[in-house]
């Protein structure tokens, strides 16, 4: 189902112009009533017509399957083979065979942890849920955490320590790593580099600090491709120091989301989603809902629940923020360049925000440039929101840095031959580094390359040494959640493939060789919680492991002082051409979950695409350029080219093309390799998230995409969504049930059959 041609789009527009009030539809195909959609509807729930002529219909298939199943039952007419029972030799305490146990642990993602409660059956983790006692999760989880259980049992994970592809013992790795480090001791460790993802773990931070004390010239770089550079630098721009910004939506009556998908992205997403939902619920005598304005280039989950939504290209949001600041009278900011595109929006929005001073909040997405974050800080300050809906704390990270600059520096040093030894711990820079850094080419200039990772991925292929990394369900560790709460990672199972953690590797390089990650972690926390040790510590430690967190470690709010922003937040000179917007994929994220079939199978919000990414364009752009769904186009951006299929998305900003990271993998598992196209090849340090200057050219070829949007579609007359205004809801709280489509009782003259007991008796 793919043929929303330009003609259809004209028809759709004509039809929508006649519509009065909200009208809901499933897809452009349904709206246009294309033959393809009609046929699908007919096949899915037919009046029988297409079934009779189709040689292999669903009904035939079910018949054959039923027959096979019945025949398979004949195999039951045998004696059961003898089965063995292997009881424990010494049964672990608390364990009751047949009953699950639950352990609190935490899953790190982009450095930040989420607190989980994991079910375990006889020593095997089986199900992940949120830890109800965790302040960020409050019992909830996201798709990544749910699917991580499958990642644990992934047969494609790397299973052995290798040197040039040959299996080596851990001892050989230790000898080689230690020798590489010792060789540079006289130079103070110059030439040794450490590359990790974002690190919030206090223990890992302490290990790295100890290592840099021992080797003062050793340099540590951090890189997460979907990291929060802009948030960090925006805070630094506004306040002259690194801070962590926390939004508290529970208090907010008016929320403005500037390209911020806070319900689905960012380390605090679970807490924000909960608070937002509580602000919408009219219970306990509440009469008013919060009001959400969303301005965004591409439809997101946040945008879809907004009361007012404005599709605006990502690079224009800077001007929007400045125009809003000007309307609110925020002092010391430059004027916007051209506010005509959203002129009707600014005045009412400014009035609404003014009317809710101290109860409003401007939330900016992680992908927006630092200047927009700084402007939002100034607006929130001017509206008196600081302290109620926005609070600032010290950074949660061990060492907040501009990661893009950090990686650029590493690449430059590698190119200049200044890097002798590189330890890459849990990162995949060969795949994820911006294309203009040419990380893969420079990496080969490094003499000794060590890689710790869960998969034999693109980076592992270019490193001499590879060590399989333990999954978080196999590791000891700690990580901080979005509010700073230290969440303990405790293993549910011994490493399936002898995996190691960054704690093991860093311990071996420093003075903790031979110590387990557990003893390193425990020693760190003993020194901080109860240095005297003994029962006092034991009690606290067991409590912390049971709860999954160390109480009282959330960062306290602190005052900040807004710097004069002035022209430092002025809009950059406008560029011409289409806009390309990079986003982390909603299911495979930055590519790290590409080998997880549950996440591949999970339809992405709005597009409902599975197993692929696509270049998302607006219907008006499709009409202008003559594009249809599944047309393969060539994306050209600053001399780089990638071929991608097109998917038309209503609600997309008219001249923005959104592409998602994480696909087109070359290594990293049987599932990861294959689907989608790699947009990291278009991503540069100059434009990590959005920039204009994209060109699109038809290739004349097509590429099949699997969208589940129109599957299971029933008759078109039933409402897809039942909606009412707040006023109607107050009058009739049960409106949604009243709108339900009640099927007619059976139309028969006979009395209805009365079912008694089991039907098969």
């Amino acid at each position: 189902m793919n043929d929303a041609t330009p003609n259809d789009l004209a028809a759709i527009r004509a039809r929508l112009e006649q519509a009065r009030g909200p009208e809901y539809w499933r897809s452009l195909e349904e709206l246009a009533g294309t033959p393809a959609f009609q046929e699908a509807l007919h096949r899915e729930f037919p009046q029988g017509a297409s079934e009779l002529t189709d040689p292999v219909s669903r009904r035939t298939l079910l018949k054959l399957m039923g027959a096979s199943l019945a025949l398979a039952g004949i195999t039951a007419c045998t004696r059961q083979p003898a089965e063995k029972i292997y009881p424990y030799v010494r049964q672990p305490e608390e364990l009751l065979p047949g009953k699950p146990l639950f352990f609190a642990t935490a899953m790190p993602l982009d450095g930040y942890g989420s607190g989980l409660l994991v079910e375990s059956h006889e020593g095997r983790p089986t199900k992940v849920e949120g830890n109800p006692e965790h302040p960020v999760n409050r019992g909830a989880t996201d798709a990544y955490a749910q699917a991580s259980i499958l990642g644990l049992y992934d047969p494609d994970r790397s299973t052995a320590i290798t040197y040039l592809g040959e299996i080596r013992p851990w001892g050989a790795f230790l000898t080689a790593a230690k020798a590489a480090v010792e060789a540079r001791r006289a130079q103070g460790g110059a030439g040794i580099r450490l590359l990790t993802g974002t690190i919030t773990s206090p223990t890992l931070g302490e290990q790295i600090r100890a290592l840099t004390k021992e080797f003062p010239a050793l340099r540590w770089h951090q890189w997460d491709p979907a990291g929060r550079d802009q948030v960090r630098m925006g805070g630094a721009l506004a306040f002259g120091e690194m801070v962590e910004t926390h939004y508290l939506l529970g208090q907010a009556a008016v929320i403005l989301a500037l390209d911020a998908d806070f319900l689905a992205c960012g380390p605090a997403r679970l807490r924000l989603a909960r608070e937002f939902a509580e602000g919408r619920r009219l219970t306990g005598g509440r009469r008013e809902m919060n009001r959400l304005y969303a301005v965004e280039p591409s439809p997101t989950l946040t945008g879809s629940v907004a009361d007012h939504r404005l599709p605006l290209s990502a690079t224009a949001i800077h001007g929007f923020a400045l125009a809003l600041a000007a309307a609110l009278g925020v002092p010391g900011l430059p004027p916007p360049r051209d506010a005509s595109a959203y002129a009707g929006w600014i005045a009412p929005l400014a009035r609404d925000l003014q009317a809710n001073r101290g109860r409003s909040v401007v939330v900016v997405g992680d992908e927006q440039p630092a200047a927009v974050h700084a402007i939002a800080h100034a607006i929130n300050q001017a509206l008196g929101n600081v302290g109620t809906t926005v609070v600032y704390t010290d950074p949660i990270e061990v060492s907040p840095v501009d990661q893009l600059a950090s990686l650029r520096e590493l690449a430059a040093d590698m190119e200049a031959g200044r890097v002798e030894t590189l330890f890459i711990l849990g990162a995949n820079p060969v795949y994820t580094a911006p294309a203009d850094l040419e990380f893969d080419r420079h990496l080969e200039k490094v003499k000794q390359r060590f890689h710790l990772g869960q998969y034999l991925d693109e980076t592992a292929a270019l490193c001499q040494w590879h060590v399989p990394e333990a999954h978080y369900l196999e590791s000891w560790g700690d990580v901080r959640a979005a509010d700073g709460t230290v969440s303990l990672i405790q293993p549910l199972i011994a490493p399936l493939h002898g995996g190691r953690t960054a704690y093991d590797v860093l311990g071996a390089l420093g003075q903790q060789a031979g110590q387990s990650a557990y003893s390193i972690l425990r020693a760190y926390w003993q020194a901080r919680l109860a240095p005297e040790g003994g029962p006092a510590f034991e009690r606290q430690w067991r409590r912390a492991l049971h709860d999954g967190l160390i109480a009282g470690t959330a960062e306290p709010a602190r005052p900040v002082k807004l710097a004069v922003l002035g022209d430092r937040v002025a809009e950059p000179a406008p560029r011409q051409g289409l806009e390309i917007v990079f986003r982390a994929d909603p299911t495979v994220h930055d590519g790290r979950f590409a080998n997880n079939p549950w996440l591949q199978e999970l339809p992405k919000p709005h597009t409902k695409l599975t197993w692929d990414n696509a270049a998302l364009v607006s219907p008006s752009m499709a009409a202008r350029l003559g594009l249809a769904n599944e047309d393969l186009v060539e994306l050209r951006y600053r001399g780089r080219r990638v071929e991608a299929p097109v998917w038309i998305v209503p609600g997309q900003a008219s001249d923005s093309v959104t592409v998602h990271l994480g696909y087109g993998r070359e290594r990293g598992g049987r599932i990861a390799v294959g689907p989608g196209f790699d947009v990291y090849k278009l991503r540069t340090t100059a434009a990590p998230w959005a920039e204009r200057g994209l060109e699109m050219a038809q290739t004349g070829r097509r590429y099949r995409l699997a969208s589940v949007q129109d599957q299971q579609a029933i008759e078109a007359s039933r409402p897809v969504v039942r909606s009412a205004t707040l006023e109607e809801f107050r009058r009739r709280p049960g409106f949604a049930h009243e709108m339900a489509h009640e099927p007619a009782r059976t139309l028969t003259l006979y009395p209805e059959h009365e079912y008694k007991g089991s039907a098969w008796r």
Partner: protein
Amino acid sequence: MQTFRRSANTVFVVSLLALVFGVGGLIVLAYAIQGSPYVTRAFDVREQPVQFSHERHVAGNGIDCRYCHTSVETSAFAGIPPTKTCMNCHSQIFADSPYLEPVRASFRDDRSIAWTRVHDLPDFVYFDHSIHVNKGVGCSTCHGRVDLMPLVFQVETLQMNWCLDCHRNPEKYVRPRDQVFRMDYQPPADQIALGRKLVAEYNIRSLTSCSTCHR
């Protein structure tokens, strides 16, 4: 003209009878075989790695079922005791017996004793010990007089009609909760009356829907 010989009459009658009784007999035979101890493995004494006698431990020493099968009241699985449970006593009693060498070896080498399962339900059946025990189904109702078995064998068919017999008419088999673990319990003469009373008292429902067991 005589087309058939006279003997054809006999052949005809015999073949008719053979058809009716033969096919019927085959069906009866199939049922008999299917429920026979040959298929169900009832009364089939299994070889075990240790010559463990329930008779000695239960009838001889008076050890309660739950000393070893610890989770029978709380979990679906009754529990096979860890080697540690054996060694609680056998580190003192018969500590040198050659019969117990597999037990000591297990404890020494930290390797499980590989028992052969005696009561083996098919994998498509869900069975929960705890609910049965808590609703007054005695151990011996299903497992027989284990206290008289030197080596354990199965005494019932463990087939579906056997399960349903009790699920349809629980009053025929339930006993007071405090008698569940008694091996020598004899149902009283007025079992049906007592059963009805217990069914009401223990709130026992006659669960016969497919998904009760085939989940």
